[in-house]
């Protein structure tokens, strides 16, 4: 589904990503873990077409989308849920969702809306409420719902658990597994490695713009480097 080959990207002369390759299959949740500044958000922004890579290729279902603009990325089936949600705060829940469907014909948008409201029933209850007045968890659900309105084949999620109570975060992560039945691939960037490794099937570990470890989540959980750096185990005993 998604294939990224040797992606190099960054801001001006500063390269935040150095030769990153990864892939995700339809219906698969893949997580990217890494510390602050490791390049996770840059990777998502590059995949969403917000930043143009200096090198490498991004393929969606065999189609090269590397050179496309951000809005063409949406049409190609990629939707980004940005860090910090970035909702249109003065607009209602319904309007936010409708904006997410700007690439979809009206009839289809209505169907998708039904699906999103089924996934997050609370959004239906609050459909006429102004987005800025929602709780943190509800705002995150709305941000995900808005992205899903474009019927993406690939959903990019940047730190969905940020600032949320653990119980709410778990609830949101659980709803992500519903996407598997829709064959949507999910690329999940998350600082809460515990939660991410429970939700995803595979993962990549980014360090200073490079992938240093990859594997299924079980092997990542068993990897001592991952345990030390991201799961808080053996913290006092790093590298003799």
């Amino acid at each position: 589904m998604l294939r990224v080959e040797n992606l190099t990207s960054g801001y001006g002369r500063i390269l935040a990503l150095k030769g990153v390759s990864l892939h995700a299959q339809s219906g698969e949740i893949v997580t990217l873990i890494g510390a602050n500044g490791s390049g996770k958000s840059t990777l998502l922004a590059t995949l969403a077409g917000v930043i143009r890579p200096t090198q490498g290729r991004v393929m969606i279902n065999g189609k090269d989308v590397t050179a496309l603009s951000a809005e063409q990325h949406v049409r190609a089936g990629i939707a980004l849920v940005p860090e910090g949600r970035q909702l249109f705060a003065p607009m209602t829940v319904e309007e936010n969702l409708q904006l997410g469907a700007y690439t979809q014909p009206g009839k289809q948008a209505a169907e998708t809306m039904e699906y999103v409201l089924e996934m997050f029933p609370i959004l239906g209850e609050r459909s006429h409420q102004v987005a800025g007045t929602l709780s943190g968890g509800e705002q995150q659900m709305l941000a995900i719902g808005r992205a899903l309105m474009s019927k993406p084949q690939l959903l990019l999620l940047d730190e969905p658990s940020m600032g949320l109570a653990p119980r709410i975060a778990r609830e949101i992560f659980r709803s992500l597994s519903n996407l598997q039945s829709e064959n949507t691939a999910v690329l999940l960037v998350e600082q809460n490695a515990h939660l991410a490794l429970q939700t995803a099937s595979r993962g990549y570990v980014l360090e200073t713009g490079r992938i240093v470890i990859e594997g299924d989540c079980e092997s990542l959980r068993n990897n001592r480097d991952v345990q030390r750096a991201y799961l808080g185990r053996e913290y006092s005993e790093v590298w003799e």
Partner: protein
Amino acid sequence: MAILDPQVETVARESIEQIQLERLQATLNRVYRHVRYYRQALDQAGVMPEDIGALADLQRLPLTGRDDLLNHQPYDLFAVPLRDVVRLHPAAGAGGPVVVGYTQNDIGIWTRMAARALVSAGVGRDDVIHLSLDYATNAAALGTQSGAEVLGASIIPCSGLALDRQVELMRHYRVTVLVATPTQALQLGKIIDAVGPGAFSLKTALIVGEVWSGELREQIQSLLSADAFASYGLSEMAIPGMATECCEHNGLHISEDNVLAEIIDPATGENLPMGERGELVLTTLTREAAPMIRYRTGDLTALRAESCACGRTTLRMEPAHARADDVVILNGTRLAPSQIEEVFDRLIPGAPFQIVIRARDGQDELEIVAGVDTSRFEDKIRSLQTLGKQLEAEVYEHLGLRAFVRLAEAAYLHGVPRLQDCRAAASGKEG
């Protein structure tokens, strides 16, 4: 026939190559960070890990040889702290043993690879597996054991048992699968053939050995009355089952999600096109403790890319017929004639010698004929005997090999090849 992991064994080439590229890059990033030797080697070659943007760029990386391993014993090539290593397995060979370390994840992946190899040889949960391999000298023994347990097959560890006893167990426990080296398989086969194959339930022989030929297969199959499958592994890399035959018996399928194979010209180090025969070079893709970049195996083979009738899409390698150097493998230990020369030079400098290898009781036997001056034969017999014993002791001390040394007049060895392998005339090894 069954395929254990179709999601990697039967996928399109571009999918497997994508996984290989991802894992190669992650491995390079790790070794560059954690292994001083590789960092220096890459710096010297002027290549950074991020310069490897495609599998074809692999050729830009420096090759690693056995000497490089020897120079960094025991732990300098590990990419994790020793405390993360849960198993150490010394692999004997030319120049001394090299130690291979495994993390818990390495063992998990290795087990899966061994299980895949068994499945490709048609082994399943109803099978009773007889394991003749030696646990200390052959890393494939432990791998096969854990792989078989994953499949739910029953395994009988028999390493070190006398051959008669082993054959008795095979008959009594209705063993269906034998896992053995070519030498062991031949020796067991001779006894089984003499007893009469009708008394046995054996159907499959998984032959774990570096050298293999059509004639050897015929011989093993007819003696054991079983279908023989070749399996290739390398103790230095501890990847038993990295390539195993399928039911088509047409090349060994490489476990491509775990190892990257290339063929180079052993003389120039240049990569050879697909299908041409040369030296096999391997890069590990999933090893955590002891990753290896472009390791020269010394084994001569060729790779083939056509898809196989069994459904697997992985690359196949021909059975390794010969070595790029003159190394022989004795009971799983590699021996180069130059090592004997080094040892002999201490006592009888410059003396000619001949190495003779025979099979006896499932073990490889090493005899060395040393050529000495005629004048020595005028001495007392006792002094000759002492010299012989001294040489045997030196060989044991320095190479860890039990040898029988015979002395002959130097002139007798004139023009005789330094190495004579009599284990199976058909084994395809030249001297």
